[in-house]
């Protein structure tokens, strides 16, 4: 880019309050579009069930917004280009790489981070299985695996080992804990299946 800035792109939202935003270059023609930025703009994000107001430059990623503006540091910045899964969060229930998404594009969506899945005193079944199986070492990749594993189990409640590997294929662990992560996902699947369904 001529000015040398990354992600300094201008946002135009197609219609006020529309869920879908599109990223287009300066000078693109979109009727009735509003331009965000380049200076800080107010946004509101729905994170873990609560509406959070923040003011950020439009180029700020969802990951940066969560970590640096909302102090939700569970999602990690590791590769910053969608290659490792450590920043995985749920967007309307679907796992996404928060480093590849602009915060402004997450407006109007339900965002769930690892912090929203359980607390140290009230772990989700998958989080509890991670603890029991020792499915972590340094733990830096763990939030990404927990979020990706949660998304997998919601879609595939009793995954085979191959399905577990597929569901976690985008996540990297450098300590080499994959085997125990797979074990934890399958253990949580069993414990959830055994427990009486609520709601």
């Amino acid at each position, binding site marked *: 880019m001529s000015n040398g800035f990354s992600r300094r792109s201008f946002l135009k939202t197609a219609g006020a309050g529309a869920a879908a935003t599109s990223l287009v270059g300066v000078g693109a023609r979109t009727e009735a579009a509003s331009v965000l930025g380049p200076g800080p703009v107010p946004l509101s994000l729905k994170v873990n069930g609560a509406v959070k107001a923040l003011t950020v430059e439009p180029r700020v990623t969802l990951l940066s917004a969560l970590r640096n503006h909302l102090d939700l540091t569970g999602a990690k910045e*590791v590769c910053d*280009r969608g290659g490792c899964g*450590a920043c995985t969060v749920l967007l309307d229930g679907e796992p996404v790489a928060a480093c590849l998404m602009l915060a402004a594009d997450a407006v109007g969506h339900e965002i769930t981070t690892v912090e929203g899945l359980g607390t140290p005193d009230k772990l989700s079944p998958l989080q509890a299985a991670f*603890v029991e199986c020792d499915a972590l*070492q*340094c733990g830096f990749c763990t939030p990404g695996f927990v979020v990706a594993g949660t998304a997998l189990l919601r879609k595939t409640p009793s995954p085979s080992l191959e399905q577990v590997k597929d569901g976690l294929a985008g996540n990297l662990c450098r300590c*080499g804990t994959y085997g125990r992560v797979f074990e934890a996902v399958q253990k949580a699947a069993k414990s959830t299946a055994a427990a009486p369904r609520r709601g």
Partner: protein
Amino acid sequence: MAQEQKAKEVPTVTFTVKAGWEGAPRTLEVKAAEGDLKPWDLDSKLRVVKGRHPRLEAPLKVTGRAKYTYDISLPGMLWGRMVGAEVPAGEITKIDTSKAEALPGVKAVWTTEARTVRFAGQDVAAVAAVSPEVAEDAARLVQVTYDEKPYVTELEKAMATDAPLVYEEAQMPGNKEVPRRGNVLGPQRGGRGAGRGDVAKGFAEAAFEVEQTYRIPVHTHSPLETHGVIARWEGDQLTVYASTQGIFTVRDGVAEALGIDRKNVRVITEHMGGGFGSKLAPSATGSAFAIVACRLAKQAGAPVKLMLNRHQEHLCTGNAPSALMTVRIGAAKDGAFTAVHHRSFGSAGIAPGAGTGGPASSLYANTPNLKVEEHDVFINGGPAAPLRAPGHPQGAFALESAVDELAEKLGMDPLELRRKNESSPVRLMQYDVGAKAIGWERRNKKAGDPTTGNWLGGDPAPPRSKKRGIGMANGNWYVFARGSGVGAQVKVHRDGSVELFSGAQDIGTGFRTAMAMVAAEELGLRPEDITVRVGDTGFPEGPASGGSNTTNSVAPVVRLAAHDARTKVLALAAALLKAKPEELDAAGGKVFVAAQPGKSATFRQAAARMAGEVIDCVAERKKQYETLRQDIAGTQFAEVEVDTETGEVRMVKMVSVNDCGFPVNGLTAESQVIGAMIQGASWALFENRILDRNLGTMVNPNLESYKILAPRDMFEAVSILTPVANAGNNTSTAGLGEPCLVPTLGAIANAVYNATGARVRTLPMTPDRVLLALSEARRA
């Protein structure tokens, strides 16, 4: 090879212990320092230690609540960003920071005083700004001009006599006694590489011999949390939150560089996102970012958070050197080795330290003639850093491949050839354990011929293009432990709560939990009853976590402090139970009369009787003592499947049989071993740092083209620990994190050969190399 400072003579006490391992116990007298405790041995009835306990911090980590250095935010904090050299060699003629300084939100700028650039990524400048985005913008606005010079980024090109010189001879680092020629420094013959006997004589006596050359590229550590710090000044007091393996190293390094008193520097590492050896320097081997962050914070009058980005992490925080290794082994007709000659060249970038002779020097110690020659070759690449058993996985890959090639020539089973030459009684025992666990008898008796193996239990229809094979290899490591200058503190409070303090950091090994288990053993509590506080230079000193020395340096002193607290709690309980303290025992949260377990008080009731608010016990590490074994033995077995049409190698299973003295926590110890096999498989099959020969910078400084093993590549990884008492301290602990990575590469390479009959001597074993080896094998 216990590493220990030569201390003044200390009075000793002699203990008789049942040492060794299950099936081979032996009575041994050990001389411990006065005041030390009798070591845990085969007769010890341990209730907590050697058990399995989930890590105490796991609930914080699985919920995203654990705050790593990367996650910490301080009021008024600025974001720092390093600027690295864009050229691999040259002189800096100008650094223009005016545009960066003019950018709104930029609060501080640093530039290097060094003028010579020797690798792309070397520190040039840095900025601190109000947001990470503005800091990134400012970093891009720093303009550096260079007088560029010729450079060399490839190992074999750097060895040529006409190669561009990375250093003028006078500036070349490394031992001045060692011969130097061009970019080559060596042979290093001191230390482990000293050798023995006369290899020329040994080869003359040999009935069979092999000589082969093996290659391995540079790997980067690639910890998921990049290197970085947060620096905060309060007057002359400096606090540094660091992603490090050695908080005391950071403290001392920062204090020295800034010319301030080290007692004014506090370093904190509560949780750490991986290091693997790269985080042992005050900053990193190829960057002074921690010092720079402290300077930026001082200049800006605000805390500065400076984390490297992924690109910088690959370039300047260390790597494992490349290696070009020639191994020659001679053997008599019965397979007994007559001579081993290991000659290696390798590049640690602009640094020395590329030796790979450790395994050749230590394995098969009955071989009468040994020569080890190691050479460092300088290239214009970032300096290496220790990476999990530095040089050993590489050296063992070469040595253990050559041993396999020799077995083929001798017509011997490779495992039998190793048994024949084995010098470690521990490894002899491990061979049986491992062979059984992998099913060694299933392997192809003739490499590449599946009809000579037993793959499917008699099922005659294996897929034609896919071939399975089983191989094995050995590894060695040493017992490193700090025998002094390590402390621990245990506080028992009046309410019965217990705190344990150690300055050493938990780098993801489960150190915190293991120490809680040691204290819990002494106090008769559960690990979760102990609040463990680690990773703060305000706590009793601990070692840097390198050389697999943390647990065995700290566990013995934790035991001493906890034992002191136990003695005091038992004295309080004695009055309560109307018994003598020596009649009491503690377990399950209770103190009881050993002969009448019904006669008991709770730990809490006993603690409530203390005179003040706290029983505070501080202990100092006693010396490491002479021991049964001073090495750490391991052997690994691998099963692979090779697609002979595509050249793809798929890992099926791997079994590690490793010694670590007494494993404190079986659960986390196994995780470490399994992780080592996975990291080793990643090196064997995928990892390769590529420096562009035309640009001199790294081609793949990310996590998708610098490929590390991912979930879809996973295999069944089995860790079998063979506990050995006594490793030389009161807990019988030894190291684990590194030895279990040493055999991995060789075991996988040998399995690929067993599957295909094709020998791949260059790592990683990517499909192109496997196909090439297959076509060469067909021609032969």
